[in-house]
């Protein structure tokens, strides 16, 4: 039963992230349709509005599916653990709010699928407002004891801003692809720039209110998981603003010269979607941690951050497997069972909610893993830089990923086969093991694709995009990765290292994307940025410490 609650927490984050994506694309699509595509129809043609209506309709359908999954998951946990009937479980205020969201999504989807661009605008807007109010009732603000009205208003504004700006970008990218003249691009770009500014304004105002009331002090920014994740969101927000400013300049260039290239605007907008979605998943993971102001004990101090991150020589020699806490405990249990001629109890049962005890050897084991992974990644970055500089044999650098994947599979979970006694499938009940396997598979996937691209001369454009996409996805996933360590402080100190790693990986992925999708000077600059990001990731790993 404990496993069910743990899995609920795990799955609910993933589904929540998808829900934010679907909600933002639905509302952003509706607003793009009403504020931009329809009014500018005479300049940019009716196809843009039709495309936008389709994007919003399918997103609304996605929203319904995500919300249904959320309600089903919550109801299944409640009926299984609290002995409630299904109607009782569905009576929870969050479930009711979820059903309202589904109904609003259904109205939007039905209107747009059946009536297309002739769907009544007041009805679309009303459904959007109802959806946003219901969504606000499932945020932190709804459960607050103090400052509830202002936090509810801020949560509403925050989601609205995200929908106008980030949620509208897929429709913007689609519109740029559909329009084929400078006047049309300028009209779309200029109107969306103004919409984005309104969205950014909503986000800045609401984020300021929430930072003051949920974080409260500068110490809480680095001292709590909530603060660290908020800082990561702010970093991605600044990246998005920089890209948005680039697009604004492209629009201004079109004003002076209608024949100016819009390629940069299109490519930047693609990257904005990727970073924006990563930000949504960071936002989803924020909902699983308590607001910083509530965490008054177990905060990390600045001295502890400095002490933990002071560089020391990497640990390149592994401790003995038998010295680790679980094998040592298992050996003790085996010996006791042998005395009484009984079956030995397992030292650790994956997924039963009881955290494994860690000792000094466990910490050394983990540091060794991170440091050797750092060696692999620095090697990848340096070889990629040499390849970029023209050294032909260095193009085989993706092969290093296979070595890294094998290393991770063997070393990351010592209690699991082949090092430990646990079976591979049995171990997947443990959320942390599951995540480690996911990262190892990701490593193999992008290793294969990139090696074929580099060494095999694979000209398939889509195959070339696998490496940047998977790197960026891996970074976003790392942003939401956490370690099952009973000590809250230690877990946070580890996350303080993993969060910059995630952000650099996201930057690396999208820099490579821009190298491939752009040309000329911009492409060349991006081509040097991502290998440097890999070297930086390797360096952070080499300096990683857990004690």
């Amino acid at each position, binding site marked *: 039963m*404990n496993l069910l*609650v*743990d899995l*609920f*927490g*795990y799955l*609910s*984050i*993933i589904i929540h*992230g*998808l829900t934010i994506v679907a909600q933002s694309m639905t509302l952003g699509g509706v607003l793009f349709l009403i504020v931009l595509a329809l009014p500018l129809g005479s300049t940019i043609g009716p196809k843009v509005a039709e*495309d936008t209506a389709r994007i919003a309709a*399918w997103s609304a359908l*996605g929203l319904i599916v995500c919300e249904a999954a*959320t309600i089903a998951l*919550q109801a299944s946990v*409640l009926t299984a*653990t*609290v002995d*409630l009937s299904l109607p*009782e*479980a569905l009576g*929870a*205020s*969050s*479930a009711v709010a*979820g059903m309202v969201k589904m109904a609003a999504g259904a109205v939007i989807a039905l209107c747009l699928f059946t009536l297309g661009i002739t769907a009544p605008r007041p009805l679309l807007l009303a459904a959007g407002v109802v959806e946003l109010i219901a969504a606000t*009732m*499932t945020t*932190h603000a*709804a*459960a*607050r*004891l103090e400052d509830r009205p202002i936090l509810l208003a801020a949560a509403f504004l925050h989601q609205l801003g995200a929908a106008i700006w980030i949620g509208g970008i*897929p429709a913007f990218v*689609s519109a740029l692809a*559909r329009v084929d003249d400078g006047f049309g691009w300028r009209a779309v770009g200029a109107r969306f720039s103004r919409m984005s500014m309104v969205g950014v304004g909503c986000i800045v105002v609401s984020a300021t209110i929430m930072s003051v009331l949920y974080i409260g002090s500068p110490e809480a920014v680095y001292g709590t*998981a909530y603060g660290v994740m908020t800082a990561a969101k702010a970093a991605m927000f600044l990246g998005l603003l920089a890209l948005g400013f680039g697009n604004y300049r492209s629009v201004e260039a079109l004003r002076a010269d209608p024949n100016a290239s819009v390629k940069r605007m299109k490519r930047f907008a693609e990257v904005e979607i*990727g970073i924006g*979605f990563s930000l949504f*998943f960071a936002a*989803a*993971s924020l*909902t*699983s*941690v*308590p*607001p910083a102001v*509530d*965490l008054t004990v177990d905060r990390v101090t600045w001295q502890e951050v400095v002490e933990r991150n002071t560089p020391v020589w990497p640990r390149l020699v592994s401790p003995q497997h038998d010295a680790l806490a679980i094998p040592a405990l298992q050996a003790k249990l085996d010996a006791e069972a042998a005395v009484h001629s009984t079956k030995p109890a397992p030292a650790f049962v994956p997924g039963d909610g009881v955290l494994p005890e860690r000792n000094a050897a466990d910490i050394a084991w983990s540091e060794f893993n991170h440091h050797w992974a750092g060696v692999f990644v620095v090697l990848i970055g340096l070889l990629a830089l040499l390849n970029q500089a023209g050294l032909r044999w260095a193009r085989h650098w993706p092969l290093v990923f296979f070595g890294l994947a094998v290393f991770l599979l063997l070393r990351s979970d010592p209690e699991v086969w082949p090092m430990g006694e646990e079976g591979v499938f049995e171990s997947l009940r443990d*959320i942390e093991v*599951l995540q480690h396997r*996911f990262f190892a598979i990701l490593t193999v996937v992008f290793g294969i694709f990139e090696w074929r691209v580099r060494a095999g001369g694979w000209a398939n454009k889509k195959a070339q995009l696998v490496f940047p*996409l998977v790197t960026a996805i891996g970074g*976003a*996933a790392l942003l*939401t*990765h*956490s370690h*099952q360590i009973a000590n809250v402080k230690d877990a946070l100190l580890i996350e303080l290292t993993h969060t910059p790693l995630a952000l650099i990986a996201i930057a690396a992925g999208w820099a490579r994307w821009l190298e491939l999708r752009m040309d000329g000077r911009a492409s060349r600059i991006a081509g040097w940025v991502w290998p440097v990001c890999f070297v930086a990731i390797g360096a952070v790993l080499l300096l990683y410490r857990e004690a």
Partner: protein
Amino acid sequence: MRTRLIAWVLAGLLLGALPAAAHAILVESTPAISATVAGGAIALRLRFNSRIDRARSRLTLIRADHSTEVLPILPEGTDDLMLSKVTLTPGSYVVRWQVLAVDGHITRGDIGFTVGAAP
């Protein structure tokens, strides 16, 4: 266009992973964690940082022999409180709480304590 959209949705599907952390957290409790209290009728009081849905939450008593008993949650108190009453003999106990916060998050935790002789 449609292919591009599907690619983005797939990218979105692949994103993200996280174990359960705490959202509604226990702010204080009676008995406190690791406390020793006198045996007999004991009033349990758990206070959280969020408004909770008591009707959809649960308190379970776990005895030293691992036997369990679901404790009644009293309807009194403000939205952040869970109250209960239980009569206990000397020994070690754990009260396991599972709460549904009003925003839909389910979290759980344990309060271990010892019961001494009755006064």
